[in-house]
């Protein structure tokens, strides 16, 4: 599968199997952009963490995947969007080991480490959108 310019793939995140599907779509798009195995694995792992968060803490939502370009580089941007409770304390949520739900607390902070760009847009009652980007040199 190859995304046309500006095209976005949307993956619903409602079930456990959807997380697996999201991983596969992200993997396929990274491979299409010819990212290295290591870069692919890091980004897919980040996507898996965030997709799971959307499911477990966001009450379900969706992932949006698209090709991007910037500064002469190609990249893949993935956003994880939910209408859940939202995150009040961003800094706490981004602390290694902190979890509100019995997990390992590495999802958000790990995704930030594994991607090149990371953005958290969330507030109580306003849902959560986490966006990650992986860039490659042309």
């Amino acid at each position, binding site marked *: 599968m190859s995304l046309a310019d500006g095209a976005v793939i949307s993956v619903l995140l409602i079930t456990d199997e959807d997380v697996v599907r999201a991983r596969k779509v992200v993997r396929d798009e990274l491979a299409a952009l010819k990212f290295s195995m*290591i870069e692919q694995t890091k980004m897919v792992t980040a996507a898996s963490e965030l997709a799971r968060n959307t499911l477990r803490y966001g009450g379900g939502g969706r992932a949006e995947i698209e090709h991007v370009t910037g500064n002469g580089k190609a990249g893949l941007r993935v956003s994880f969007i939910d209408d859940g409770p939202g995150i009040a304390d961003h800094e706490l949520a981004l602390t290694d080991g902190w979890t509100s739900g019995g997990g390992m607390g590495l999802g958000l902070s790990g995704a930030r480490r594994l991607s090149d760009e990371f953005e958290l847009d969330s507030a109580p009652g306003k849902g959560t959108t986490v966006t990650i980007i992986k860039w490659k040199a042309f």
Partner: protein
Amino acid sequence: MERIPILRIGRLLLVTIQVDMHDRLAMTLQDDLTTRIVKDRATGVLIDISALDIVDSFIGRMISNTAAMARVLDARTVLVGMQPAVAITLVELGLTLEGVKTALNVERGLALLEREEE
């Protein structure tokens, strides 16, 4: 319900994970392994992840938990075949698989478990 098959070789249990597991399947595997350790009085568990191209924090925790439960039941766990990209990613993720020994492949994993026995 789908399950990942667990093989028994003597007092050792062998699991080869060949599918991209969703969370429920991973939890089922954790429960199945623990049940089998007791039922078969296993002294060792070998988990082959050579086919996995991603191990995230949930799967990592499943593996650590399984090893911890095995330990409580006096069995040792060895993880084999971790792909290099997975190893690199786990370190960057900050995930330490505590209580889990690793080996390059099934053969060396079995040898490690046998050494542990003596």
